[in-house]
Structures are given as C-alpha cells and as structure tokens.
C-alpha cells in the first residue's frame, strides 16, 4: 500500500519521462558507432557513451529536477493536504534519480559486456561517472528553481553552466581550485589523479544543494505559489 504513490507518480511522469534517459544514451551511443565507422579509435568512440551518461543524462536530470519542483497544477491544493509538499517533492526526486540510476548501471554493464570500459577504474567506481554529475545537476536544478522562482530561469543557468563546463574543460582540468566543480571530468580527464576526489566532491555538493532545497521548502512551502508569470 505504501507504494501506491509510486504507481501514480509513474503515471504522472509518463512514458516520455521514463524514456528520456534511455533515448539520450541511445542517441550518444549512435554517435559513438558513427565515430567508429568514420575510423575513430574505440576509446574515443566509447567517450561518446561516457558523454551521454555524464553530460546528456545529468543535464536532463537537472532540467527535470527544475521542472518537478514547480510544475504541479495541484500545487495549491497539495499545500493544504496532510502530506507535505516537500515529501512529495523528495519522492519525485528519488523516483527520477532511481530510474536514471538503473539506466546508468545498465549502460556501464552493457559497455563492459562489449569489451570496453567507461573509465579506467573498477566497475563499482565506474558508477561515479554518472552518479556525481547527476547528483550535482539535480541539486543545483532544484535549488536554482527555488532561488529564481522560475523553472525557465533555472534551466537557463543550468544551460550556461553546461556550456561553460564543456567549452572551458581545459581550465577546469588545469586549475586545482576548479576540480570540485568539474562536472564532466570523465569525458575530458578520466585518467587524472583528481578524478575520484572530484566525483565525491560533486556528490557532496549535490547532497548539499538538495538538502538546502528541502530545508527551504520546509521553511516556506508557499514560496512556489508566487512564481514568475
């Protein structure tokens, strides 16, 4: 009975929501295949899949997190119910993260089965390829939406972070003070010594932002009612 909410939330997310991370991985994998047919080395082609997990899925998760904070047409009604909105919000985040985690684990296993590795570390540590940016983007997405009271504004900042991290990846790799914020370290600097530390720091950042979002929602649950028109 306690999982009844899960069925309703799954119906709410819908097929499009569930398919999004899968389609992103398929899309980036097809890029990898295309690169192979154009004579690119297997290692570089595998990086397309890494990019799909680390850059594509994580960005989508951030946008979805920004969306699920605000996009509830029942928000006003929900705030009047016994179940707190932050509980529902946390459940939705958990559902999204859980499903994305399944896709992430599945992808690392498939890549290993076909004889490649996403990163030069153990299979367990390879999960950090997707987990770290996923946690960070999700936390940032949720917190930005609350800060800006605008889903679109949050999406714009996430997009800005994305493009800057992508374009200035050399600076992020070269400056030690930027290492904790290097979201795409596997795609661009997988073999660097700071990789593991970077992953753990990103997860910590994500947890911090997620916790701040929940605390904010707890202190002022009606903050979402007066968002930008």
């Amino acid at each position: 009975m306690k999982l009844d909410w899960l069925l309703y939330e799954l119906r709410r997310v819908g097929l499009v929501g569930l398919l999004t991370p899968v389609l992103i991985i398929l899309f980036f994998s097809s890029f990898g295949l295309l690169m192979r047919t154009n004579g690119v080395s297997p290692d570089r082609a595998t990086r397309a899949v890494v990019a799909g997990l680390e850059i594509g899925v994580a960005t989508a998760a951030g946008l979805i997190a920004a969306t699920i904070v605000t996009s509830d047409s029942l928000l006003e009604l929900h705030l009047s119910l016994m179940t707190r909105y932050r509980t529902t919000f946390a459940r939705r985040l958990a559902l999204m993260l859980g499903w994305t985690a399944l896709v992430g684990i599945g992808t690392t296993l498939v890549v290993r089965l076909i004889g490649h590795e996403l990163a030069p570390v153990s299979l367990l540590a390879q999960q950090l390829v997707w987990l770290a940016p996923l946690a960070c983007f999700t936390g940032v997405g949720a917190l930005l939406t609350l800060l800006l009271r605008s889903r679109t504004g949050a999406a714009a900042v996430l997009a800005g972070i994305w493009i800057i991290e992508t374009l200035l990846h050399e600076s992020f790799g070269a400056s030690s003070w930027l290492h904790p914020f290097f979201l795409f370290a596997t795609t661009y600097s997988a073999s660097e010594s700071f990789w593991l530390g970077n992953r753990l720091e990103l997860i910590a950042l994500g947890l911090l932002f997620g916790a701040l979002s929940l605390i904010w929602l707890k202190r002022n649950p009606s903050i979402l009612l007066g968002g930008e028109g």
Partner: protein
Amino acid sequence: MMHGIWPALFGATRYEFRMQLRRKSIWIATFLTSLLVFTGLRNPWNFRHDTTLSVVVAQWAVVCNAFLPIVFGVLLADRLPRDRRLHLPELLDALPAPSGSRLAGKYFGSALATAMPIFFIYFSGIIYSAFDRHDPVAIPLGLAAFLAINVPGLLFVAAFSIVMPAILWVPLYQFLFVGYWFWGNLLGPAYGIPTISTTWLTPIGGFAAAGFFSQAGEIMTMGGDAGSVWQGAGSIALLLASAALALFIAQRYLTWQHARQ
C-alpha cells in the same frame, strides 16, 4: 478603427518587451552565467596591448556569442507556452489583430528584452577596452561588432526558441537546444561526427567575425579559412533568412492548428 498588421505588431512588440524585461530571472541567469564567462581567456582585460582593437572587439563579441545565447535561447522558450498556461489564447483569438502580428511582436519584443542583459555585459567589456586603450573608437566599433556578430545569431536563436515549443515540450526543447548549441557551433569536424559548426549556418558568428573583423574569426571557424566579407554577409543573410522561415512556418502551423479546433 483599423485592424492593420503594423500597429498590432508594434503594440505586441512593446508589451512583450516590457513583460520579458520585468522578469528577474533573465537578469539573474544571464549575469550568473556571465560571471563564469569572465573566467575565460578572451576577455577584454586579457588581451595583450599589441593586439589590434578590431580583434579585441570582435573576439569579445564572439566569446559573448559562444556562451550567452544559450541562456538567451532557454529563457525565450517559455514565451509561447506561457500564453496557453495563462489561458490567454481564448481572449487574444477573439481580437481582430492578425495572429501573425502577435507572433512577430512576441518574437521581436521578447528577443530584444532578453538580449538587453547580454548587451550590457558585452558593452561593459567594450567600455573597459575604450578606457584601457584610451581609444573611443572602441565604442562605435563595438556596436558594429555586436550588430554584425551577435544580433544575427541572437535573432536566429530567438526564432527557434519562440516557435519550437509550439510542437515540443519546453524542457525537451531546452535540452535539445543545449545539445544543438554544442554540436552546431563548437564541435569541430575533427571529432568524426557530422556537424554544421564550420558552415555559414553557425549562429556563433565566426564567419561575420572573420569576414568583417579580419583574423578574429579563425577560432570559431575551427581552423577553417579565415573567411571573406562576402562569406560574412552570406552567413548573416542565411541566419536571418532561416529565422524568418522558421517564423513563417510556425505562423502557418499555428493557423492550421487553430482552424482544426
């Protein structure tokens, strides 16, 4: 009373501009992103003093155009769905003003407003250059570079960001737009993936920068040829024509969709 195209277009532009300009998030999001842009190497205060002014100005324009249109495009994506969310189409559709004027007004007004913070950020760099080099020519040159390099790209991005959410869920469009921006502007052919990043259809403005401001465009045409004035003009024309075509098709689609109701 006259139910002309132009008064409705100007009226819609004026009010869409005001509404978008009043959104705090366009200012906060653009300025937050620009803070990260300033950490880059091609800012006005990072050039050596023997670099020519036209190179400084054009490269600063290209740097702004590499990063900030992504925020610009994402911020514009909710303009058309917002009307639906606010239950406005029923009221607006009962008015005699042509729907094409309203769409064009939404495009020009909201694009202009969203470009304002970008212009301020860009122009602050230009003013810095003018003072730093004691050369007031930086200001007209900066304006010319903004018009030639940034404006066509922004108008191109705005057209797609306004109209695509008519058929795509906004978060999905925003995600695809972010991916497109990297693929279509910044991913060189060396990656082994087909890309339009070195073609005239690159809104980042590499060809305009190369064509009108000499060597400045080399970076953003990914090592391709430096580009002539004609190529620069061709790129601008192609971007503007694509924007106009996108708006025209969207208008036809929305009219058709409305007629089907």
